[in-house]
């Protein structure tokens, strides 16, 4: 499956790059000005009602190609979306239950075992549309720096990350190409990505910052009470409870999704998160990561999600991203990840089996 995904992602990246070359200059800079003021529905306490279930699947990547425009033209977006839809159809062929085992030693495609097959696209839900914010079809979620790229990490951070190379981070994908990861990656469960361990969704789905995973399980549900706002992430059923108008926990209490406290700034819910543990490590950051999220209703069916990332030990400057969360009528279904985690045991057993085979071979 991984190879198929990788090749699909590759195709998408090329498509995006092509689009970026041909993109027509968009109307002006990324603007926060709204053409007409929108008054959201309100709760009895007067604050906007942000509740509902949101589907954040999108084709807009976190970063965009170097030198490309921030906004896609409707024509380019339509063409790219059509290509993605065609690819999805192509990869949606039913999996044959009576298909033979893959050839021993691999079928010639990437990876030591080759492509053994996996999900068809029926199981995947990577998004089919680019994200629209302020009427602009966005080419990246990152909007600051204006080039739509996460700033380079500091030299010290690069050194730190190199030392921890095989340590997974919260933004890691479910897996890279099986069998091709750096030495040691299959030695222990602790070396596997957090998503594979069912500790957090992969690709920072739960966040913060909550990012699209471009794969499946794209829903978030928000429930608001007087003292708390809950943000439930479908992936790994992670409920982050934001305590309103509260103080942060003492620094000794570290959490997987950090400690989130909230406040209202006008009609915007501002959530401030610190106290991350040293295992989340979003994009290689330290436990001093500081995330500020801003949630606001921009129309009857859309929430705007904006986040700013700060960690002086990792980046020289803060950076900001934003994307729209459309409401959905779909309910969240239980994602019992750990309960059905056959993969972890099989990955480790597979690695031991391979080592034993290699050891036997070298003895001969």
């Amino acid at each position, binding site marked *: 499956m991984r190879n198929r995904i990788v090749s699909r992602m590759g195709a998408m990246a090329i498509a995006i790059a092509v689009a970026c070359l041909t993109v027509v200059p968009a109307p002006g800079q990324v603007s926060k000005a709204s053409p007409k003021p929108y008054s959201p529905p309100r709760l009895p306490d007067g604050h906007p009602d942000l509740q*509902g279930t949101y589907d954040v699947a999108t084709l807009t990547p976190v970063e965009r190609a170097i030198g490309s425009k921030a906004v896609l033209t409707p024509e380019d977006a339509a063409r790219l979306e059509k290509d993605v839809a065609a690819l999805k159809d192509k990869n949606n062929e039913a999996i044959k239950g009576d298909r033979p085992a893959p050839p021993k030693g691999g079928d010639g495609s990437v990876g030591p075992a080759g492509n053994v097959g996996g999900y068809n696209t029926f199981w995947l839900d990577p998004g089919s549309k680019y994200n629209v914010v302020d009427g602009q079809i966005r080419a990246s979620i990152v909007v600051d720096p204006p080039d739509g790229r996460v700033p380079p990490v500091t030299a010290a951070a690069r050194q730190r990350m190199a030392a921890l190379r095989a340590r997974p981070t919260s933004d890691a994908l479910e897996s890279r190409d099986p069998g091709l990861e750096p030495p040691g990656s299959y030695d222990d469960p602790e070396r596997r990505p957090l998503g594979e361990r069912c500790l957090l969704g992969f690709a920072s789905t739960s966040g913060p910052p909550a990012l699209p995973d471009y794969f499946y399980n794209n829903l978030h549900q928000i429930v608001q009470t007087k003292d*708390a706002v809950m943000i439930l992430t479908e992936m790994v059923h992670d409920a982050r409870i934001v305590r309103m108008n509260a103080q942060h926990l003492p620094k000794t209490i570290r959490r997987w999704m950090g400690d989130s406290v909230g406040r209202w700034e006008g009609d915007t819910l501002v959530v401030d998160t610190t106290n991350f543990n040293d295992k989340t490590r979003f994009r290689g950051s330290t436990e001093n990561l500081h995330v500020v999220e801003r949630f606001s209703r921009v129309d009857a069916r859309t929430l705007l999600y904006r986040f700013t990332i700060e960690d002086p030990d990792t980046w020289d400057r803060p950076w900001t991203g934003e994307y729209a969360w459309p409401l959905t009528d779909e309910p969240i279904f239980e994602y019992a990840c750990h309960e059905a985690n056959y993969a972890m045991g099989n990955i480790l057993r597979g690695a031991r089996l391979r080592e034993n085979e290699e050891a036997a071979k070298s003895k001969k």
Partner: protein
Amino acid sequence: MSKRSEYSMKTMTAAAVAAAVLTMAAVPVAAQTPAYRAPRAPDGKPDLNGIWQALNEANYDIEAHVARPAMAVRPGPYGPVPAASVLALGAAGAVPPGLGVVEGGEIPYKPEALAKKKENQQHWLEADPEIKCYLPGVPRANYMPYPFQILQSPSAFVIVYEYAGAVRNVFLTDPGPPPVDSWMGQSVGHWEKDTFVVDVKGMSDQTWFDRAGNFHSDALHVVERYTRTSPDVISYEATIEDPNVFTRPWKMSMPLYRRQEKNAMLLDFKCPEFVEELIYGQWRKKPLSK
């Protein structure tokens, strides 16, 4: 979110006036305890928001029981002793006694199901889903020794459990039959006067009621009743129905207490991490010494 909450000032005002009148007119009646009136949510329903926890021995054994030396035992020369696998825990691994939460004292098992329960209990260490950090199901989630938080708004009702980060979204509009079984089931809630009634269906047969092997099949149907009976207590009842396992429906009941700490909140208990050594340790490149 299709429906917006409506806040009726009129209702609230009327209620306030009624309450004021009652207060003025109320004459203490010795023989009668007036029913507790819970604080109201903005929509006029009793407010169940908060952090709650059971304070009992139900997670060890929902039936009435005396103390036992351990959750896993083996025959000793003069009666049961802790099984070798849990011996090192000493008194910390013993089962505290409890009067039970099952109304009537005993669960009405069918004979073959009772045999299965005993077998479960014997193989507790291998078979209890809690050992492997699996989602606890309903009603067990409510009386595990961890707090849980109710988030109630006019348009939503969600219960978040500290244990394993389990979550229940209680639908306020019936979405129809559950599409497939799940660990926590499908919950649909409605108000009957001041009681929040939750109908839970679609649970798999993988969860248990406690550490004593009490179990159910995938035909389990639970009806829960949440009633606030004092500022810091929810009276909780669960009616259990499972014709595959029990001869008749039966009921458990217990108080749920509000956590009193000013800074009470749910913390992380992401236990999949804590059972990796148990489940996967044997496949480490260098397994740890036993």
